[in-house]
């Protein structure tokens, strides 16, 4: 974990997150070890999967929990995702982006699937004590933006959006909310929420370019 975490810290501190291509290149560089670990997984090396787990599982569980809200479900998501990482490792190639991005996308997809299968309300009602309450979750979602390094391009570009658009985008990405849920939470008509998010994403792309 240490080598990559250090590289990542340094890279956010130098604030070189200046564009998509740079970002891709940087992330790819950082992920060399993860890419190699995926290749080793494809060749049947379980210790390589263990290295990925040791390095990323803590963050992956936390990320999944922001979406599915319950710790036990988040762990279930990560467990399923790691089996998939193992069985699909041979399909990873650097043209598909960074190894880290590939790994996180698998976990995100699993978490979103779990959420979309059942209803979010059911998950919440399931066990109140273990479930993040709505307001608490919204706080966590906004915190994800605040936690970005202050020199990062993504932080700056999100900051340039007006608040509703920023919230909508973060609720979708960080919390796994649907258009409908976002519209409900922001008290907007569905069509309005959709077009605000779409325009927010456009501004974000222009800013990040």
């Amino acid at each position: 974990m240490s080598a990559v975490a250090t590289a990542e810290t340094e890279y956010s501190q130098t604030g070189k997150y200046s564009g998509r291509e740079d970002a891709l290149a940087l992330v790819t560089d950082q992920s060399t070890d993860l890419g190699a670990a995926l290749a080793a997984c494809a060749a049947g090396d379980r210790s390589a999967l263990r290295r990925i787990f040791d390095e990323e599982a803590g963050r992956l569980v936390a990320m999944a929990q922001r979406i599915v809200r319950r710790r036990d479900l988040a762990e279930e998501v990560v467990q399923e995702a790691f089996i998939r990482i193992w069985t699909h490792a041979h399909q990873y190639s650097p043209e598909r982006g960074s190894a880290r991005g590939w790994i996180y996308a698998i976990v995100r997809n699993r978490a979103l699937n779990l959420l979309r299968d059942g209803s979010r309300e059911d998950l919440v009602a399931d066990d109140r004590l273990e479930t993040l309450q709505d307001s608490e979750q919204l706080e966590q979602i906004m915190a994800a933006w605040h936690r970005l390094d202050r020199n990062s391009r993504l932080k700056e570009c999100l900051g340039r959006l007006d608040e509703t658009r920023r919230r909508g985008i973060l609720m979708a990405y960080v919390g796994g909310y649907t258009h409908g849920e976002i519209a409900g939470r922001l008290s907007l008509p569905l069509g309005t929420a959709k077009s605000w998010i779409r325009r927010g994403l456009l501004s974000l792309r222009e800013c990040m370019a």
Partner: protein
Amino acid sequence: MKLTPSEFPAIADEYVLGLLDEADKVAVETEIERNPALAEAVAEARESFLPLDTSVDPAAVSPVLWEAIESRLPEQGVSPSPTAPPIAAVQPASPMAAGNDNARAGGVSSGWRAAAVSAIAASLILAGGLVWSVTRTVDPLVVAVLLNEAGEVQAVVEDFGNDTASIRLLADFAVPADKTMQVWTLPSREMGPMSLGLLEDAHSTTLHGPALPRPQDTQLYEITLEQAGGSPTGRPTGPILAKGFAKLAR
């Protein structure tokens, strides 16, 4: 949703944010496999938002979680050959397709593990199928070898292009009494998946389906487990039992 190149960045963002509805998501995941520009747009969008995930405070992870994972790892097959046969080459290269395995609907374990393992076997069957098919009076236009997610050959579909397709099952399927096997193909992204018909009693059969465009090379065929009488929505809803891509009979 129109998958035009000028829309790729917008579509990629919404895909990565998880905002696309199921049909659009499937369309994107299908298109990614053959459209490098879209794949690149998705990779870029993913990298843009990734810092929101990597900056999270890590949870304390119990060693039990790793043990649970390790106990469930299947053996890894032989490494993919660099000159992987065509079926391997057109298998979905996730994780774009990570959410697209219908696994959750039926408790089938995750992942279309792939075809690298079984591509050789599949090719042999395909070759066998082709020989077998050319020795008969009416030739199919395409033949598809369908694999399960472990990469084992399950069935061969021959599509004759005249609304007739023959499905030969090469494995036993346990179909619950209230379920049925349904055969699908994806003639084009615009049309979406089309039903070729139901496999009664999980037996090999010849199906007479709707009039569809002439089957193409690499067209997707699959068998899903649906409720008795077939999918209520007209689209596949159940777990995928087997799938594969057609080759033109030559």
